[in-house]
């Protein structure tokens, strides 16, 4: 706590960043409001018959605007071998978002991110340590194998299995079960397991096992919005590497890889302004 307070004026004095708020703060507020949305939706629907906003991150509708999680939709198409027009339209929006901005769903919306960040904030308050290094317990490639394995398993079993392994969707379903029937579904154990994994190794599930993250990362591998690295301004302090929840090294250009989810933690941590978000134009 003390050290972070010491750092704060430094940054302002240097005047490197013209922003008022840290990306971390904005992101946490976004996560919070996304979580509030999926808490409010089932309550409004079942108690007050207010159906303007329905569902959660497996499928969400705001008025006539539909979203369907791309992975669930893809699995439904693969396992049933049938194409359903409205499903494709619902999947289009998240896919376009991932094409342009990358895995931003993971970092800015996903309720698991919200819980993990909340845990991190509590841990930070208790231990007064600013960074908890993520580390690399496994090779990153496992991420892609997890996606392929999961898709194949779904096709073998003939059921979109991701729905039981999808913590973002599970949180929403558990909330609905709690609101409507006053019970919780057993598969919610998964959410607890994922959070326990997060406590052992930071964002373990998100980094290695989440098939939705892998799909969004794959779609967003040629994304427009990236964190760019200015080697002239960098003093190679290595703080950004410690700050990254995915254990990526911005100094090695790993923020341009498919793994980066544009959370902006590295930008917040950088004292010299060597890192910033940059929109790459279509011509480039």
């Amino acid at each position, binding site marked *: 706590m003390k050290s972070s307070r010491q750092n704060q004026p430094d940054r302002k004095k240097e005047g490197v960043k013209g922003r008022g708020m840290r990306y971390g703060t904005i992101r946490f507020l976004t996560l919070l409001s996304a979580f509030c949305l999926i808490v409010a*939706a*089932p309550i409004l*629907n*079942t108690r007050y*018959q207010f*159906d303007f906003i*329905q*569902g*959660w991150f*497996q*499928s969400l*509708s705001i008025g006539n605007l*539909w979203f*369907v*999680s791309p992975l*669930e*939709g893809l*699995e*439904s198409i693969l*396992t*049933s*071998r*049938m194409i*359903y027009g*409205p*499903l494709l339209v*619902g999947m289009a929006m998240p896919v376009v978002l991932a094409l342009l901005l990358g895995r931003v769903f993971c970092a800015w919306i996903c309720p698991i991110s919200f819980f993990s960040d909340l845990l991190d904030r509590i841990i930070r308050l208790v231990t007064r340590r600013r960074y908890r290094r993520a*580390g*690399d*317990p*496994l090779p990153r490639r496992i991420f892609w194998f997890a996606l392929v394995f999961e898709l194949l398993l779904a096709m073998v*079993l*003939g*059921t*979109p299995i991701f*729905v*039981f392994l999808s913590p973002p*969707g599970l949180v*929403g*379903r558990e909330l*609905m*079960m709690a609101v*409507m*029937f006053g019970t919780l*579904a*057993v*598969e919610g*154990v998964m959410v*607890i*397991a994922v959070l*326990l*994994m997060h406590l*052992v*190794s930071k964002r*373990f599930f998100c980094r290695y096992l989440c098939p939705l993250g892998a799909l969004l990362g794959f779609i967003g591998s040629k994304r427009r919005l990236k964190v760019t690295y200015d080697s002239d301004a960098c003093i190679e302090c290595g703080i950004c590497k410690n700050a990254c929840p995915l254990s990526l090294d911005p100094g090695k250009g790993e923020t341009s890889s498919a793994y980066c989810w544009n959370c902006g933690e590295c930008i917040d941590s950088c004292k010299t302004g060597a890192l910033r978000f940059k929109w790459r134009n279509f011509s480039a």
Partner: protein
Amino acid sequence: MDRSRRQVVKLMAGVLAALGLEGLFARRARAKSLFKSPVHTNYLRPPGAVPEEIFPAKCIRCGRCAEVCPYKSIRPLDLQAGVYAGTPMIDVTDVPCWLCMKCVEVCPTGTLRRVEQKEVRMGVAIIDKHACMTWKGAGLLCRTCYNVCPFKETAIKLDELRPVVVSDACVGCGLCVHGCPVTLENGKKAINVEPIYAFEPVKWS
């Protein structure tokens, strides 16, 4: 290196603990077949459902139908249903379907097809003439099933004051089952909905 290996060991221990916990819950599930459709008499799919053959494949278990159902007729299955876990079911003896068709409108995957009320085929009601008080001629003229039917005179008619289901017009909503005052020892009523359409082969069109 040493540190990361320790992390992996810790992690595997965590996963094993979680699986153990899961196994505890799932013990009862193992007894049942994990690949058998849960649909049976009076236990039906929501309106417009595709056949059971592809239902678990198409449904993404988003639960939107359950969320939108104003009567809470629809309940998602729990993990004990195996492959079918999370899919929506209606127990018509508990809460039947009033055919408001809201679930059909919100289904994002087309698992619940957009059909009109009279085209719904959740099953077909069959009267147990050995259990029905009117048919047994016990001096009672109960016609609750006839009275509650949303397609009175089309799907159910009275033949000399005794109810008769018109199979081709019955939508299988289960209102008659819910209304029937006779409950047998096996939990069935004197009129029951049999989900005969759920097990039709899929038409690839």
